[in-house]
């Protein structure tokens, strides 16, 4: 019984979003750990972006620039295929979210607590996604067309379409959060059973593969929904 109690205690500790530090302004703003880690990710990515885009040339590009162009072009083409011709303006947002989620899911390898394990982060991301989806619908069809679209293809399923407004962000955030947390819990259980060597193989799947797949699925679903909203 003591092992399970210990595990539950550990899990509860991990589930709680601890306060990393408090900003002494307006009576103390509490900054939770996920926000602090997000700032670290932002700093790393900003520095990486600055370093990578320096000295870009139109003629005679270097090796670094070629790799960068291939990677960015590949991701861009992938989104262009999914989101369609009219949705091109949303691609930069999608790529940003993809990069953020990819780094956030992998940062557990470096000893940080992944921000996506905090439900608040995934809820915020899902809310941003649903706002963008509905905004893209309004932008493309106009307010009237957007409202009319709820009654597509038959008027009788309008309640289900309205319900989808809430189901989509819920399922987006729960999928991301549940997957990251699930991988983490399974890893903890494996570490409890066999502390040496075996976790390495599983860590490759749960930490690296699963995290990247979930980042991909999140942006892929969002872009599919946007395409549906604007087509």
């Amino acid at each position, binding site marked *: 019984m003591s092992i399970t109690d210990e595990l539950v205690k550990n899990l*509860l500790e991990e*589930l709680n979003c601890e306060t990393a530090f408090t900003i002494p302004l307006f009576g103390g703003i509490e900054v939770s750990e996920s926000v602090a880690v997000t700032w670290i990710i932002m700093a790393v990515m900003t520095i990486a972006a600055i370093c990578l885009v320096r000295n870009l040339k139109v003629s005679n590009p270097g090796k670094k620039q070629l790799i960068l162009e291939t990677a960015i072009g590949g991701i861009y083409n992938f989104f262009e295929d999914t989101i369609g011709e009219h949705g091109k303006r949303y691609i930069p947002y999608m790529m940003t979210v993809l990069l953020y989620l990819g780094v956030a899911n992998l940062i557990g390898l470096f000893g940080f607590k992944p921000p996506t394990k905090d439900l608040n982060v995934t809820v915020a991301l899902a809310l941003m996604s649903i706002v963008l989806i509905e905004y893209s619908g309004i932008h493309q069809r106009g307010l009237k067309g957007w409202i009319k679209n709820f009654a597509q293809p038959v008027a009788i399923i309008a309640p289900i379409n309205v319900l989808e407004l809430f189901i989509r962000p819920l399922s987006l955030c729960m*999928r991301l959060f549940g997957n990251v947390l*699930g991988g983490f819990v399974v890893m903890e259980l494996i570490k409890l059973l066999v502390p040496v060597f075996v976790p390495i193989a599983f860590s490759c799947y749960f930490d690296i593969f699963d995290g990247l797949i979930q980042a991909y699925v999140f942006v*892929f679903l969002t872009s599919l929904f946007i395409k549906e909203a604007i087509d």
Partner: protein
Amino acid sequence: MFTAIGAGIAVLTGVGAGIGIGLATAKSVDAIARQPEAEGKISKALLLGSALAEATAIYGFVIALLIILLLK
């Protein structure tokens, strides 16, 4: 005791996801074998379907975790 049983029952949702993903993968392997040039599109659809099917299992897992952690 009963909370543990409840959590176990909640995790049974994984059965559906397992069957669903298994069926989807079998069909996609079939499709790729028939039409290898369409592999890109097929694997894209497979990934999406698997993610959607997996969601039910994840919901069950989250509920089980909530039961264990909150009702303890």
